[in-house]
């Protein structure tokens, strides 16, 4: 039986960078030969979710949403547009524990293994730490340093914040960073006041967003006071209120994300071989047993 990976992302009518992480991670996974086919599909770009499954030849399709949290897109939009008879209860999730549901789409004769979003997978915790290492250039970063894990947040969906708090809690438990906080763009505690939540001089800020765009490149830097004008870029580190802010940009662009995608598919039963971690990884231990 042949197996395909279908990576599902939001995409954009305005921002060409929106689909870049999906394309880049698809290329990484294709290069390690983990699947017979690796395809992408988008809500706002092409192929559309509606047309995606017919572009796949394999009869077993592992659909992995490149989204940060469980919610409207993973529970309603993606399954509806892929023509899957899915109900959110099929995942039996507590808000961050969706794994896989096996379904039959109505437009093609295939089996779809519909996975939970990458953002809630345990391996994402390692990507957050990796992001802190790469933005500071310090593979041992942590001692005396504060880490802010930043999410979009929305009062309409409590799972949005849960995913952020889940990973912040997991990083905190490791005891590597002096302080770890979950902060949000659209709800309390807000990233605007980042320096008020930390005593450490150095604060690493990792936004859990899939792609770089208006939120990560203009909104959040301006909210934190890294720049007066979002269009002018920001310094790394930037000095704010007596702290050095190391702002990492969207975590979805981190090459190690390819491993999280593979972990999601492997957890769902895909035969991805023994290639995790991929070439994208060099030092981190993925999903370190917890």
């Amino acid at each position, binding site marked *: 039986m042949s197996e395909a990976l279908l990576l599902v992302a939001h995409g954009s009518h305005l921002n060409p960078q929106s689909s870049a992480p999906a394309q880049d991670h698809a*290329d990484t996974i294709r290069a390690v030969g983990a699947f017979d086919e690796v395809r992408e599909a988008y809500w*706002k770009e092409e192929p559309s979710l509606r047309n995606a499954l017919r572009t796949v030849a394999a009869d077993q399709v592992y659909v992995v949403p490149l989204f940060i949290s469980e919610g409207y897109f993973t529970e309603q939009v993606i399954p*509806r547009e892929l023509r899957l008879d899915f109900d959110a209860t099929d995942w039996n999730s507590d808000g961050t524990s969706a794994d896989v549901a096996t379904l039959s789409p109505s437009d093609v004769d295939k089996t779809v293994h519909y996975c939970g979003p990458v953002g809630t997978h345990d391996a994402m915790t390692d990507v957050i730490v990796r992001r802190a290492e790469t933005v500071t250039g310090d593979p041992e970063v942590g001692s005396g340093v504060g880490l802010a894990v930043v999410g979009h947040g929305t009062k309409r969906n409590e799972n949005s914040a849960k995913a952020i708090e889940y990973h912040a809690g997991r990083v905190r438990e490791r005891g590597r960073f002096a302080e770890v906080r979950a902060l949000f763009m659209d709800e309390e505690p807000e990233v605007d006041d980042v320096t008020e939540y930390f005593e450490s001089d150095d604060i690493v800020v990792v936004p859990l967003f899939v792609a770089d765009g208006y939120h990560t490149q203009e909104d959040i830097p301006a909210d934190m006071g890294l720049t007066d004008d979002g269009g002018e870029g920001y310094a790394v580190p930037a000095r704010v209120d007596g702290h050095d802010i190391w702002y990492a940009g969207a975590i979805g662009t981190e090459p190690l994300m390819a491993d999280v995608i593979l972990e999601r598919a492997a957890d769902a039963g895909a035969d991805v071989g023994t290639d995790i971690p991929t070439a994208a990884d060099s030092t981190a231990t993925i999903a370190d047993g917890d």
Partner: protein
Amino acid sequence: MSDTDPVDDPTPTEALREAAADGVDFDGLRVTRDDDGFHVAVPEASHTGLSPAAVDDAVERHRDHVDNWLFWHQHAPQAGAEWAFLRWVERADDLSVPERYDRLRDDGLSREWGQLAVTVRVSGDGRRRYGLRHIDDADDSVENLTTYTDPYEARRLRKTDDDGDYRPLSTAPTLAHGWAFVDLAPDAVVRAVEGFYPATVANWHREREGSLDVTHWHETVSRQTGIYGIVQTWDRGEGHDHVNWVAEACCADSQCLKRREWGYDDGTPLDVDGGAGVFPCREPCSMVIATARTWTRLESEQSRTYEFDLTPSEKEQIETIIDAVADGRVDEIRDGDTSDGANRYRARYLRAKLFDDEGNLCGVPTDGAATDS
């Protein structure tokens, strides 16, 4: 895989002798085996009662027929849509094997797929190799083009037009120039084509097979939720003029190279032309739904009467400006051409004369526009 290493392949004679047991009947080549031996026939000749060794001689005499059969059964991707697409590229349904091979060895055979020119040739080892360019670059020297061999790079080339502007709609007729994919294997050329125009091969094939699953406007907007749920309210049971206007705005060949097959609903085709594209559009796309969301808000307003005093030329100039924007003509208008109503100086003069300090045409306040909110 479809493009296997030649050393792993059986010889054409071995492959044909093995297939003869089940019979071969493909593109004019017929091969069978019975108690009298092998029978090999092509439209121009036939050989019966051949010994296994004599099959080799027949294969050499009709090598193009045998290579053609081998290609389509061993090297071409076997998925139905991809196989059919590659057959279409070389007009396999219209040209005989000798006609095709004459052209495959010479300049190759080409087809246009949107703004893509797909070309197939036969290389020295008898394999088909494919090239892909912008149709406007088809006759350029390859030295003048940036060459690519990784078909997945097409996904990135499709993102921007010649000016570097983002193309959210892959099938907009604004594909960038200046690149060439060279020496692609059969499965790779399909990937590159799909990189430029996603899902077009699959839906084109479904249409040819009579199984294209068209989803019409009403059904598409009816399933929208979230910020797009409001588009449902634009269908008020008062006809489908609004959908005609959407299609005329977004789906004409000047805006999208897909051929629109969807209508208002299953029994109500639209009154505007669906276009002449080679591949079909089976459903209103995300661009159409997103723009329809904007129009749903705007069209919730009621008309009201405004009074403006315009000269006949000023009225015509406003119409010319709207046409120039709608037809994407603004960048072509020369600064010195003040005979064109959409000339920048002409537009600035009109604004200076007719707008008040708040930007109101002829000083008439707007009041209550959806765009005010």
